[in-house]
């Protein structure tokens, strides 16, 4: 197992502070080291060639490079050793630049001592490295799109045009989502169905799209590249192939009338119906809840398409990626009881208003008072109903309702210039290209704006009154209107939770699906191979929903176009003999990569290698291929082999943020004391309590764990898990008589080198106050001794 160690000068960057000569001779004496050299620039061609020459000459099978941060040059050296015939994973780096020479510039002796420890740790870990193979797996190039609103439609068309096959599954009998029900749409006020209709037909006719409507997803298994999906199509009681979509023949004979959900309750439909004339597919559907089974439609249909015996049909799909575009549902306005929706007929929602304004809607475009059927002469529009409202649990802004109301007000005013339209608002939010101009246009049309959040709607006799404070004048007023329109907010689809659970998606406090990163990864879910588009991840307008649909499609294309997927060999694996099937790993895994099929099983395509499961497993049955338990323990032991300073700190830094922060402290030349021996792990959740205990047992005075800031974990919630473990650990320390303050957990972003240095300094000060490890045990011994004497005395006579 001959090992080569290369200590880099990096010009004077390292050699100017550390004694590289001494480091080289130190390395040569370490177990297993066959050759050690110092190189002026190890990353240069000359440096790399030297390493490659040594590999051949000394038959080296593993390499340690003590140089800069692995986050910078690990790939370089992996490539270099691979060229010389070694497995690229047989490399370990000791970070003696960013985390040593650059941050301890005025303490060369101590820094050199620290560098020795770092090299010893790297050599100890290197001894345990195993060759790893990058596997690639074949993947399905088909994509499932869930939800046929405008976002899902955009995604499906882009995917299919790029040559991937799409299964578009829609719950309702037609695709189109909410956009198909809107009247004209902002900011251009063009007719909604006129721009959406052609896209809906395109979906229907596209050879690479299989459209499955009136269907539900029931189960999803597998992972990125190979999801197995089961679902069922509800029975329409109408044969899709036979129905001609004429609707007149069957619906005209149906004796049952029910409120039409596609008109949000203001219009009526029959028990056999087509949602609206532009529905896709244009096929009738029998509502089993309303149907009385008279079978008049069966007789009336000239195509003999009505089939009461139709059964639900199950379907199974195998897809490589999934796009979730389940959209939104309107806030239930009856929950705001003070506005009387549901009790007062002349109080309606914006969606009902959209339907009224729609020329093919229930009133044929007339805006009427439902109580009288007369054209409304004075209309109030109330903003923020069910949004920005802690009393209903929705503190978020629904983002589109200000614009939607400005639009509806304009449409009313254009149609009925005499009608008085007043918008009651807290703030008008018109942020988007051309949106503020849209607001100005509304003002110029003579629409009234009153800055007030309406307190209550009162009905006296037949009339409704708004009670509010005009906050610009401070007057409390009571004003009569013919019609009050509640600008209801957007909530996530009520069944999104079920789907979310099937997929393992997490939800934000506002209950919409959470994306992988609130800025940088706007359409990716935490689960690999799953993307989220449109209002499923929060309220947004049509253009952005479309953009997200297309973005999700592009991400899926990037993932699947090669037909195979390369897997990083970072994954977890289970020792089947040890697994007790407790399922703790299943709970902690942020990627839903583990299932317990007696025993536990890790889906290596889904695993991203955070290592939380390995830390959590009570039986130590899970280990990691990279950053294994043994390797980390070897680093801990090497770090504590020689306690060359007080306090000696073993620090675990997560790869993404805190290790980055420590590197940044280096590049910014922030100076701090030399006490810490850093160990890189993928996630703070990887830190197994046994690592900490081992460090303390071996004489470390303290252990620092640093993770990403809370809420910013790269695996979703690893840092919370780490926090929880540290809290438990503190309890354990207390029990065995150690100061719980010897374990500390801190958070810093990759941009917070300053904070990393500050936290470390603080910890050093705290440990100094505590004294070397074991001081407290001495103390308690003495105290316990005292106590004994006292009891002895007391019990004496």
């Amino acid at each position: 197992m001959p090992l080569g160690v290369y200590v880099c000068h990096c010009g004077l960057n390292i050699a100017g502070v550390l004694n590289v000569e001494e480091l080289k001779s130190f390395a040569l004496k370490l177990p297993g080291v066959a050759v050690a050299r110092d190189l002026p620039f190890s990353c240069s061609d000359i440096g790399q060639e030297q390493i490659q020459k040594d590999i051949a000459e000394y038959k080296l099978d593993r390499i340690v490079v003590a140089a800069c941060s692995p986050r910078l040059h690990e790939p370089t050296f992996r490539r270099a050793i691979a060229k010389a015939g070694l497995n690229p994973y047989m490399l370990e780096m000791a970070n003696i630049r960013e985390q040593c020479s650059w941050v301890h510039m005025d303490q060369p002796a101590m820094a050199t001592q620290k560098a020795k420890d770092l090299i010893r740790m790297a050599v100890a870990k290197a001894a345990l490295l195993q060759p790893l193979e990058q596997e690639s797996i074949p993947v399905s190039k088909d994509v499932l799109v869930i939800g046929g609103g405008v976002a899902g439609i955009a995604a499906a068309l882009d995917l299919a045009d790029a040559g991937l096959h799409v299964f578009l599954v829609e719950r309702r009998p037609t695709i189109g989502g909410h956009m198909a029900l809107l009247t004209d749409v902002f900011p251009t006020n063009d007719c909604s169905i006129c721009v959406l209709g052609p896209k809906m037909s395109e979906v229907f006719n596209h050879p690479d799209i299989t459209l499955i409507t009136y269907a539900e997803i029931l189960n999803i298994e597998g992972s990125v590249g190979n999801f197995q999906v089961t679902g069922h199509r509800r029975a329409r009681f109408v044969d899709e192939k036979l129905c001609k979509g004429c609707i007149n023949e069957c619906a005209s004979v149906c004796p049952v009338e029910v409120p039409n959900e596609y008109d949000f309750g203001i219009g009526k439909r029959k028990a056999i119906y087509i949602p609206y004339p532009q529905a896709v597919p244009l096929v009738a559907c029998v509502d089993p809840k309303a149907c009385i089974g008279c079978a008049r439609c069966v007789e009336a249909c000239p195509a003999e398409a009505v089939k009461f015996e139709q059964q639900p049909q199950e379907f199974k799909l195998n897809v490589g990626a999934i796009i979730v575009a389940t959209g939104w549902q309107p806030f239930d306005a009856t929950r705001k009881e003070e506005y009387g929706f549901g009790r007062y007929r002349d109080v309606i929602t914006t969606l009902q208003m959209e339907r009224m304004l729609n020329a093919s809607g229930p009133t044929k475009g007339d805006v009427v008072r439902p109580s009288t059927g007369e054209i409304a002469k004075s209309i109030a529009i109330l903003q923020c109903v069910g949004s920005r409202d802690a009393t209903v649990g929705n503190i978020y802004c629904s983002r589109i309702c200000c614009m939607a109301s400005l639009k509806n007000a304009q449409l009313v005013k254009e149609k009925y210039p005499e009608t008085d339209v007043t918008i009651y608002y807290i703030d008008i939010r018109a942020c988007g290209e051309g949106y503020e101009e849209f607001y100005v246009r509304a003002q110029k049309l003579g629409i009234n704006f009153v800055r007030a959040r309406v307190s209550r709607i009162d009905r006296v006799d037949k009339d409704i009154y708004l009670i509010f404070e005009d906050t610009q004048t401070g007057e409390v007023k009571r004003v009569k209107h013919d019609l009050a329109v509640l600008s209801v907010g957007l909530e996530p689809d009520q069944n999104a939770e079920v789907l979310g659970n099937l997929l393992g998606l997490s939800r934000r406090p506002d209950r919409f699906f959470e994306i992988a990163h609130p800025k940088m990864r706007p359409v990716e879910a935490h689960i690999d191979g799953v993307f989220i588009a449109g209002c499923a991840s929060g309220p947004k307008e049509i253009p952005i929903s479309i953009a997200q649909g297309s973005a999700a499609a592009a991400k899926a294309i990037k993932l699947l176009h090669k037909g195979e997927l390369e897997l990083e060999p970072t994954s977890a694996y289970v020792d089947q003999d040890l697994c007790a099937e407790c399922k703790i790993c299943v709970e902690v895994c942020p990627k839903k990569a583990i299932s317990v099929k007696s025993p536990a099983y890790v889906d290596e395509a889904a695993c991203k290698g955070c290592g939380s499961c390995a830390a959590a497993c009570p039986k130590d049955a899970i280990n990691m291929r990279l950053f294994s338990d043994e390797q980390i323990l070897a680093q801990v032991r090497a770090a504590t082999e020689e306690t060359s300073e007080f306090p000696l700190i073993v620090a675990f830094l997560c790869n993404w943020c805190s290790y980055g922060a420590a590197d940044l402290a280096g590049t910014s030349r922030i100076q701090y004391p030399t006490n810490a021996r850093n160990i890189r792990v993928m996630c703070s959740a990887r830190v197994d309590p046994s690592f900490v205990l081992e460090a303390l047992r071996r004489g470390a005075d303290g252990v620092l764990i640093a993770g990403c800031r809370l809420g910013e974990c790269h695996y979703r919630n690893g840092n919370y898990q780490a926090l929880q473990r540290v809290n438990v650990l503190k309890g354990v320390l207390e029990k065995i008589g150690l100061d719980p303050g010897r374990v500390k957990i801190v958070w810093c972003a990759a941009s917070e080198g300053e904070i990393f240095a500050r936290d470390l300094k603080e910890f050093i000060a705290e440990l100094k106050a505590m004294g070397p490890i074991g001081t407290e045990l001495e103390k308690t011994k003495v105290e316990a001794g005292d106590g004994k004497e006292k009891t002895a005395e007391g019990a004496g006579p």
Partner: protein
Amino acid sequence: MAADEEFKQEVLRLAGPEVLTCIQCGTCSASCPTAHLMKPSIRRLVKHCLEGKKEEALRNETIWLCTSCQLCTVRCPRGIRPKAVVTALKELAEREKIKGKDQAYEELFQRQIKDYGRIAEILLSGEFMFVFPQGALQSMELGLEMAPKGKIKLAVEKIRGRDEVRRIMEELGKG
């Protein structure tokens, strides 16, 4: 007048830090049964507190027009309790010895609790007529109505736990 930061902090301490999140929407103002009489409105009162305008916040009719009906608190979209702001202002007014309209009544009320643990019908008590002669007429009207019904009982019941009640009022009254 300059902003009185100390006053602002005291209101926040008594009524809750969420008062800082007020969006001045006016929902609270228009929820009051006595809204038409209030000047400033409850919303403005909240603003005065946040701006540290102590005089404006303490010397006004509004805080004495609050019926404690809590509708503002039920409705505030930020989860603020405007009623608690009013309560805080009453307490601060008392500390500042600013005489409000029903202070006499409230003081008597609290004294009875302190002394006896319970309230006798203050409205009808001679003591009340003495400290608050303006109210006497109202009380007499009521008294005339109630006396024959056997509802007037001037002897106050004293509870045993009077010391404890006094402790509650004194200790917790410090804040």
